[in-house]
C-alpha cells in the first residue's frame, strides 16, 4: 500500500490525465466526422423548392433585388426540366452497366467522365457527372437533374460569367436564385450534377466573393496592426510608463508588488531547479572516483551544488514572504472560479465544485 498523501496525488493526477484524454478524444471524433463527411459525396442541402427561398438566406449573396419569377417562367422551366430528366433516365439506363465498372478515380479537372475502360458503352455525353453515385441516386422529382450535354457547371467556374455571388461551389444554386440572376438566361435549366466529390472537383471550388473580401480585409488589418506595433510611437510608450509610475507614486510609493503570474513563474522555475539539482546530486554521490583528480572534481561539484541549493532556498523563502494578497487565492463566498493564475485557478475551482483535491499536498 502506498502512503496516503502521495497516493492521493498520484490518483488525482492520473484521473485528471484520463479525463483530459477523454475530452480530447471527443473533440477529435467530432472533427473526424466533419472531415469524413467532406471527403464523401456532398449531399444537397436544404430544400430545393422552386419558389424563391426566403429572403434572409440570400440577401448577402445576391446584390440584385429579389424578383419573383413569373408563373410563366416557372412553367417553362418545369417543362424543360422534365424533358431533361427523361433524357437522363434514358441515358442512364443505357450506361448503368458501364457506370459500375468505371474506375473510381476519375481524372481530376475534367468534367467529362470518359470511361476509358468500358469500351462497350457508347461515349458518354460530357457532363454525365460524378460517376460515383450516378447509378444510385434517384432523381428527386423536379429538383435535381443531371447535367445534360452542357457539360459545364457554371457555378464552379470562376469564369467571365458574373455569377460570383451565387457561384459558391456548393450544390447547384437554388433554382430561385438562379432565376433571379439574369445571367443565367442562356442555360435555363438548373444545373445539378449528381455527386460532387472533393477529390475530383475540389480544386474548382471558389469561395464566395463577400467572404473573400471580408477575409482579405481581415488579414490586411491584422498586418497593419502588427506593423503599427513594431514601429510604435515612442511618445505613446513613454506616456504609458509615465502614467504607470504616477499611479505607483500616488498610491503610497510602495515598491511594485509581484503579480501572481510572476510568482507562479518563479515557483515553476524553482521546481524545475529542484528536480534537476536532485538528479545531479544523486549522480555525483553514487559516482566512484578513480583517481584524485576525479575526486577533486566531485568534491568541487558537490560544493557548488550546495551553494546553488542554498540560493534556491533563499529565493523560495522570499517568495513565501511575498505579501499575501498578491498570491493566488480562492474566493470563499462565490461560486465562480477565480482565475488569478492559469494553473492554480483550476485547482481552486474544481475543488470547490467537486470537493476533490487535485494534486494538492495536504
Amino acid at each position, binding site marked *: 500500500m502506498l502512503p496516503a498523501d502521495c*497516493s*492521493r496525488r*498520484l*490518483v488525482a493526477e492520473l484521473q*485528471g490525465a484520463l*479525463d483530459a484524454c477523454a475530452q480530447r478524444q471527443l*473533440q477529435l471524433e467530432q*472533427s473526424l466526422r*466533419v*472531415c469524413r463527411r*467532406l*471527403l464523401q459525396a456532398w*449531399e444537397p442541402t*436544404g430544400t430545393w423548392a422552386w419558389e424563391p427561398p426566403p429572403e434572409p438566406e440570400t440577401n448577402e449573396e445576391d446584390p440584385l433585388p429579389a424578383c419573383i419569377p413569373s408563373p410563366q417562367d416557372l412553367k417553362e422551366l418545369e417543362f424543360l426540366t422534365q424533358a431533361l430528366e427523361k433524357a437522363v433516365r434514358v441515358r442512364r439506363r443505357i450506361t448503368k452497366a458501364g457506370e459500375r465498372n468505371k474506375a473510381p478515380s476519375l481524372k481530376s479537372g475534367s468534367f467529362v467522365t470518359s470511361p476509358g475502360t468500358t469500351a462497350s458503352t457508347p461515349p458518354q455525353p460530357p457532363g454525365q457527372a460524378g460517376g460515383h453515385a450516378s447509378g444510385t441516386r434517384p432523381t428527386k422529382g423536379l429538383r435535381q437533374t443531371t447535367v445534360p450535354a452542357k457539360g459545364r457547371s457554371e457555378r464552379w467556374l470562376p469564369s467571365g460569367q458574373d455569377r460570383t455571388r451565387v457561384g459558391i461551389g*456548393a450544390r447547384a444554386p437554388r433554382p430561385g436564385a438562379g432565376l433571379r440572376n439574369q445571367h443565367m438566361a442562356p442555360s435555363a435549366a438548373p444545373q445539378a450534377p449528381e455527386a460532387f466529390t*472533393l477529390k475530383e472537383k*475540389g*480544386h474548382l471550388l471558389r*469561395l*464566395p466573393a463577400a467572404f473573400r473580401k471580408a*477575409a*482579405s480585409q*481581415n488579414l490586411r*488589418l491584422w498586418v497593419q*496592426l*502588427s506593423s503599427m506595433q513594431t514601429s510604435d510611437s515612442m511618445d505613446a510608450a513613454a506616456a*504609458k*510608463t509615465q*502614467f*504607470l509610475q504616477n*499611479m505607483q507614486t500616488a*498610491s*503610497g510609493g510602495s515598491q*511594485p508588488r509581484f*503579480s*501572481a503570474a510572476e*510568482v507562479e513563474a518563479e515557483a515553476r522555475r*524553482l521546481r524545475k531547479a*529542484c528536480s534537476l*539539482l536532485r538528479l545531479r*546530486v544523486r549522480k555525483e554521490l553514487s559516482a566512484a572516483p578513480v583517481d584524485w583528480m576525479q575526486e*577533486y572534481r566531485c*568534491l568541487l561539484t*558537490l560544493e*557548488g551544488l*550546495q551553494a546553488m*541549493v542554498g540560493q534556491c*532556498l533563499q529565493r523560495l523563502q522570499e517568495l*513565501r514572504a511575498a505579501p499575501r494578497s*498578491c*498570491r493566488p487565492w*480562492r*474566493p470563499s463566498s462565490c461560486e465562480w472560479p477565480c*482565475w488569478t493564475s*492559469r494553473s492554480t485557478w483550476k485547482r481552486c475551482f474544481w475543488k470547490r*465544485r467537486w470537493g*476533490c*483535491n487535485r494534486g*494538492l*499536498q495536504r
Partner: protein
Amino acid sequence: MRRRRVDPAAGARAGTLPEAIAALSRSLPSGPSPEIFRRAKFDRPDATSALWQLLFRVLSPLPAGSALASIALDVQARLVKSALCSQGYPRLALAQLPEDGSQGSRELLLALSWLLARGPVPEQMLARTRVPLGDEMTVCQCEALASLGPPAPHVETEGPVDVRHVQWLMGKLRFRWRQLVSSQQEQCALLSKIHLYTHGCHSDQSLGHLSVTEAEMLRDPEGGQQVSGAGAAQNLDLAYPKGLHFCTPGMGPRTFWNDLWLVCEQPGLLPGDWAAPLDPGGASACSLLFPLRVLLRTLEQENRRLEAVLAWRRTELVFWRWMDTVLGTCAPEAPAAASQPTFLPWVPECGDGELELVVRELQTLEEELREAAERRRVAWEAKARGCGRGPEWSATRRASRETVEKELGALQRCWEQDSGPAQAHGPHRLVRREDGAAGDRDLRAAELIRTLRSQEACLEAMLRQLQGQCRQELARLAGAVPGLIWIPPPGR
C-alpha cells in the same frame, strides 16, 4: 460621437480626445459609450456599473457568452477586485469600493487605464473572440495544459491506495493514449487529402488551399446539417471551430508534415502578449457548424473592431495625457504599510502546498550535500597534503575548478531560461506550401517536430535517470532487510 470644444493645441497633435475615447470604446467588446468615460472623470455614480462590467469582461479569461452576462454585479465587482489585486494593482482605494455600483467610477477608470497601459488589451480581447478560418494548431503547450477540464466526481480515496489500483489506472491511460494516437493519425490523413484536393482554389495566394472550415462552409452554406444532431441552430458557439484543430505534431503519415507550414495568424500580437484563453470544455459542447452568413457577419464585426483598434493606437497619446490629469484630481493615498486589505475573502492555500514540498526537498538536499561535502573535503585535504606541491598541481586544480564551474553554469541555465528560444504562442494555421514566401513568424512543421522530438528525448532521458535512481534506492532498502527477496519489475 460627441464633439466637444477642441483645444487647438490638442488638436494639433494626433487626434483629439473624443476621437481617442470613441475609438477605445469601439475597440472593446460592448465597450461603454464615450459619455461614460467623461462622467467617470468627475466620479459620477451613474458610470460605475458600466465600468465594473467592462473590467469584468476584460479580466475574465472565460470566453464571452451568455454565462458571463448572468452574473450579478456585486459578484462581478468582487472578482474584478481580486483579479486586479493578484495582478499587483497598486491603488488600495479600489479594494475599498462598495460592490453595489453606487460610487467609485473614477477609481474604476484609473484601473482600466492601468490595465490598458500594461498590455495590449483591445488586441488581446480581439484575439480571444477570433473566428479561426483555417485548420488551427497551437505550437506551445499552454493551451493544452489549460484545457484540462473538470475531473469527473469520483470517490476521493482517503486512505492508502493499493499500488495495483495505480497500475490499473496507468494501463487505462496508456490505452487511451493509443486510441488518441490512432485517431490523430486518421485526422492527419484526412486533412492531407482535403488540402490536396482543394489545392489551387483559394483566393489568397499564400494559402493556396482550403481549410476544413472553409470547405465545410462551401459544402453547407446554410449550416443546417449538424454533426451530432444536437438541437436547433440557436447557440452558435464561436468556440466550436477550435475543436477542429486537433493535431499533434509528429503524428500521422510523414508526408503530411513535409510541406506543412504553420502560419502565424495574428502578426499583431507579440508572443509575450498572448494569453491563451481558458476554454473549459467549451469546444466540444456545441456541434453546430457555421452558416455562411454568420461567418460573414462575425468577420465583418471583427474588421470593424480592428479598424477601431488601429484608430485607438493612432490617437492614444491624447488619452494618456488626459488620464494623467484624472489621476491628478485624486487625492494621494497613504502608503499601505503593513496593513493588508483584510476584507478580501482570501484563503491562501493554492500553491502553498507545492511550494512547501519544494522547500522541504531542497532542505533535505542541502543537509545531504552538507554532510557529504564536508566528509569528502576532509578526506581530500588529508590526501592532498600527502602529494607534492608544484606549478602543474595548481594548474590542474584551476582547470578542474573551471570545468566544474562551466558545468554548473550550464545546469543553472537549464531552469533559468525556462522556454528556450521564444516559442510562438497562439494558434497557427496549417498551410501546405512548397518552399517559398513565408512570413517571418511562420514556422515549418518539420523543424517544429525536430525541436519537439529533442525535447522529448531530454525528458525521456531524465525519466530513465529517475527510474534508475529509484531502482537503486529500492534495492538498497530491500537489501537492508535481511531475509527479504526483492524482485524488481521487468524494466520497460
